[in-house]
């Protein structure tokens, strides 16, 4: 049993009602919530104080053109809000925000996060081609968390519930919509609103089938997709359509730098050095440093990657960036048994142990004669 509120009806309507309820609390100002753009088109986050805008909102949007953690970061990077706002986020957005809060890029105190069972989202490009029909299909598959055609990374996402937000919205595999407080702060707010009820926890079995399907997809990613990039040649052919626009980096919630190292003056060398490089490699592809950028970014960020897939969505040339990242980060995180956005520990790069990772050292037991 846990503290929470129960709604009947559609999940989206329940979330909107709940957000409006929260906005009535004296210590809460406004909400950050996805809203469908006016004419036919995409969705975007709106920061609003008006309940009418919340009425018009779509809490569970079928696409994710902007990662919500970036929104929270934009709002509170320099200073916290005077009073917290409600933020309705997908689970991966919550994880990204939590990861960013460890490095002072998001002030979590400024947001009461609400998250939900996520069926995944469509790739933005395919959604825009056929928005109305897909939206319809999305609504149909929502409660069963089975929407076909969602992004490959969503299909293999195993952290699809809202349990790491302040409020978790559960609807998959059960009849009603249960909104459960997952933090002390959330419990206090419910009590303050006089709405706290004892709510039963959802049986794990209710979503077991979904979890199994996602795990299977993840396995497939780890084997089938891994095979597609298993050699440098294959990797480079996958990257061959990359135009070095670095869109993937600019939409990434975790890439928090003001200026990326790979965009900086550091990589702008004098012309004769390009010639030196070209002459020892037989030639030099332009724009140069594609592989360096991708591998370098993996070194910087793969430990913190929440596998939200936004990068791949933003790629103009269909480079499977997010799958590359997911594949790598699965392995790098395993070294430290670290899960970004869920672990409370700081990033493994900020910690160390005196005795560890000996298998990565090269022993020297015998001197050469």
């Amino acid at each position, binding site marked *: 049993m846990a503290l929470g509120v129960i709604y009947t009806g559609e999940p989206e309507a329940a979330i909107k009602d709940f957000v409006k309820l929260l906005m009535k609390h004296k210590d809460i100002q406004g909400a950050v919530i996805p809203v469908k*753009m*006016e004419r036919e088109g995409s969705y*975007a986050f709106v920061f*609003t104080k008006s309940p009418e*805008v919340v009425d018009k909102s779509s809490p569970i949007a079928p696409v994710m053109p902007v990662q919500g953690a970036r929104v929270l970061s934009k709002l509170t990077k320099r200073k916290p809000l005077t009073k917290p706002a409600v933020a309705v986020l997908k689970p991966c957005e919550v994880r990204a925000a939590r990861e960013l809060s460890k490095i002072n890029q998001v002030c979590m105190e400024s947001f009461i996060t609400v998250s939900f069972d996520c069926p995944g989202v469509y790739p933005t490009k395919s959604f825009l081609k056929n928005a109305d029909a897909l939206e319809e299909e999305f609504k149909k598959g929502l409660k069963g968390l089975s929407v076909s055609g969602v992004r490959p990374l969503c299909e293999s996402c195993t952290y699809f519930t809202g349990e790491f937000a302040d409020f978790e919205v559960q609807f998959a595999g059960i009849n009603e919509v249960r909104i459960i407080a997952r933090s002390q702060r959330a419990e206090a707010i419910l009590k303050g609103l006089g709405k706290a009820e004892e709510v039963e926890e959802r049986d794990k079995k209710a979503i077991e089938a979904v979890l199994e399907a996602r795990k299977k997809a993840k396995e497939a990613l780890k084997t089938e997709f891994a095979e597609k990039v298993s050699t440098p040649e294959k990797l480079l052919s996958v990257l061959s359509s990359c135009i070095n626009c670095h869109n993937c980096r600019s939409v990434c919630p975790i890439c928090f730098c003001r200026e990326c190292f790979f965009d900086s003056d550091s990589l702008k060398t004098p012309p004769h050095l390009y010639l030196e490089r070209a002459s020892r490699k037989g030639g030099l592809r332009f724009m140069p440093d594609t592989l360096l950028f991708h591998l370098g970014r993996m070194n910087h960020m793969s430990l913190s990657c929440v596998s939200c897939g936004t990068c791949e969505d933003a790629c103009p040339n269909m480079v499977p960036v997010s799958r590359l990242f997911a594949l790598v980060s699965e392995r790098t995180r395993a070294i430290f048994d670290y899960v970004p956005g869920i672990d409370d520990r700081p990033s493994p790069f900020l910690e160390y142990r005196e005795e560890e990772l000996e298998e990565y050292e090269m022993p020297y037991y015998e001197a050469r004669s």
Partner: protein
Amino acid sequence: MSEKGFEPKIVGFLCYWCSYTAADLAGISRLKYPPNIRIIRVMCSSRVDPVFIIKALLDGADGVLVAGCKPGDCHYQKGNYYARRKVALTKKILESLGLEPERVMLSWVPASEAPKFAEVVKEFTERIRKLGPNPMKERVFV
């Protein structure tokens, strides 16, 4: 479109040497002009980046006035020629966005011509009043 009681919000970018001085003089001479204009001083009309104009319009201004020295009178010799080109460009951009290019006005107001300044402001305010509120400011997605 035109509502009763609509008070347009107008941003005026005035060059330091001519138009701003004219506005100064207008004050000293106690010339009356509509209170709808919010004046921003720039060193030269060429300092007004088209981005400033668009930003003002997107964030709720109903009209933008750019005023500077007369051609040939520019304190910096040729700044106002660039300003003229920039404003022309901006108008074209607005047009293609479906926004009335009339919401932007470029005017030459020499330092000594305070009455002309008051006149320009009056005229522009009226023009905007007729055009009605800027449709951009009501939209969440801009």
